[in-house]
């Protein structure tokens, strides 16, 4: 084997490798910046496209007006905002306790095969597309609410409405909150459990006073994640809320949410000036609120971490 020949062959190979190294690093820097660029582009586009409606009607006016009638140049978001708050609050009120208790069961009570099996089933539940929940909601939950639940509490309901959406959304967010809460509970060191049990606390006291606090920041993130999902949910509310433009008077009424406003009006009312802009503004509002929540969550999490550190 001619040494000089090999060496020159190898050095051209080295040049090729170094070129690939340089080119790939450009690509990777680009990919890293893509996340930032994508976010920037989305915000810029939405802001720019929602300016026309903000120029004509003040934001405050739109947020506080209950009158949504694009044909008459009226863009009141209030009914949709009320509906969104209703749905979010109800589903979180139903979903959170169940999710927490189920997470406690999986992390602290279940053992061995049972635990693995239940965790896998929860993961499956989290992966089912929401449109399927919507369909099952139509088949099962709508008649349940219309024929049993509403009469039982003395209300009238056609089955579609805020309660129905909230029930189904509670089901959808539960598995997400469970898996994250289980993760943070399981990450806790056994010493915490032992120290608490060691001073004579019962298992439940240990869970309530020690473990839930130590895992607090993680559980808080889990709840917040669930919150974000209910808040921006589109398909299930669009299928089950029954679409009406007035402000709902009772949770058994039909209504609308910010995302369903977009779904219902986008195709049909595109020809009316400013409608497009108003709906894009709704999209921007969704984005900004999620953003604010992420930011607020970060601050709260930091506080909790300091306060409940172990």
């Amino acid at each position, binding site marked *: 084997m001619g040494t000089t020949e090999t060496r020159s062959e190898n050095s051209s190979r080295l040049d090729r490798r170094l070129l690939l*190294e340089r080119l*790939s*690093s450009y690509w*990777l820097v*680009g*990919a*890293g*910046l*893509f*996340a*930032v660029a*994508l976010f920037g582009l*989305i915000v810029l586009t*939405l802001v720019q496209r929602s300016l026309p409606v903000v120029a004509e009607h003040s934001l405050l006016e739109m947020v506080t007006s209950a009158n949504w009638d694009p044909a008459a140049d009226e863009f009141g978001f209030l009914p949709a905002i009320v509906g969104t708050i209703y749905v979010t609050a109800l589903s979180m009120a139903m979903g959170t*306790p*169940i999710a927490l*208790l*189920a997470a*406690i069961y999986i992390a*602290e*009570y*279940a053992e061995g095969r049972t635990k693995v099996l239940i965790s896998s*089933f*929860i*993961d*499956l*539940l989290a*992966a*089912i*597309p*929401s*449109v*399927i929940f*919507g369909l*099952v909601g*139509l088949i*099962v939950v709508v008649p349940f609410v219309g024929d049993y639940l509403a009469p039982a509490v003395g209300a009238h309901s056609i089955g579609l409405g805020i309660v129905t959406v909230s029930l189904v959304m509670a089901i959808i967010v*539960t*598995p997400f909150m*469970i898996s994250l809460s289980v993760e943070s509970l399981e990450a806790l060191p056994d010493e915490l459990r032992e120290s608490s049990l060691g001073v004579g606390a*019962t298992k*439940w*006291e240990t*869970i*309530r006073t020690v473990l839930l606090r130590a895992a607090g920041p993680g559980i808080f993130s889990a709840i917040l*994640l669930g919150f*974000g999902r209910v*808040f*921006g949910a*589109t*398909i299930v509310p669009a*299928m089950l809320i029954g679409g009406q433009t007035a402000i709902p008077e009772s949770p058994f009424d039909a209504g609308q949410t910010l*995302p369903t406003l*977009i779904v219902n009006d986008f195709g049909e009312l595109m020809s009316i000036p400013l409608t497009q802009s108003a709906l*894009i503004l709704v*999209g921007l509002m*969704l984005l900004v609120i*999620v*953003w604010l*929540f992420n930011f607020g969550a970060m601050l709260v999490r930091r506080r909790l971490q300091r306060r409940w550190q172990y």
Partner: protein
Amino acid sequence: MDRYTEQRLFGLLARASAALVLAVLALVVGVTLYRGGRVFVTDPAVALTPPGSRYMLDGGGGFFHAVLGSIYIVVPATVVASILAISTAIYLQSDYSSERTSDVINMFLNVLWGTPPIVYGVFVLTLIIAAGAQTSLIFGTVAIAIFQYPIMTRYADEALRSAPDTVREASYGLGATRFETARMTVRAALPGVIAGIIMGFARGIGDAATVLFTAGRSTQMPGGPFDSATTLPILIFEQASSFNAEVRSHAYAASFVLIVAVLGLILVSKLLAGRFARFAPGGRHS
């Protein structure tokens, strides 16, 4: 209430909650499989038959167009999104970016991750209007890819982060370049990376909000990338509350297909992860 009663009560509640969640899962899967299964019994080829000419009115033919549309939209989207996601995840590792840079990028990724899919739909539709184009298959692909990107990036980043540092050291120690080492790290983290890609695929194929007004809600077989198309979730969304029982039954059958596909994908991802774990460094011994 004395403390032992409280302890028993909450133990019971915890058990009951877990049971309730499982019961709901059984109900959802059961109802979907039963209602969809019944349609397949009477019309086994419904998923592979092209739609009739008055499909939305009488449900003539089948929903092959939505099955194909889903595949044509989500497969390319997954390919694009996973390439971007893995690249971003590599960039986030310490060989390529400083800690501060990766923190900032992670912050943006978190916001993207929590952004409701409908916002991506609105964003892409805005682009379509700005470009003076028509809603079509290709824009559905773009919207789904944007939706999948932060999901996959998070999985890939987590997987790469948990790959042992010694793989990097060993690779550099042999004179590998940064890029060659990154490829080795990806290999070491492959089970997690693949699980992330499949998760992204499953989320993409199940999402309706992103494609609802970007892909075009077609009722015909998909043509080229610039023709309008539809997907299974859109089909289910549009037909679930139809007054025509025949049309509605297609929504049930489509849900059957979708749920089997999604659950199957997750099963495949678990099996694949197990296979690749053989090669993971220290997999069997640590």
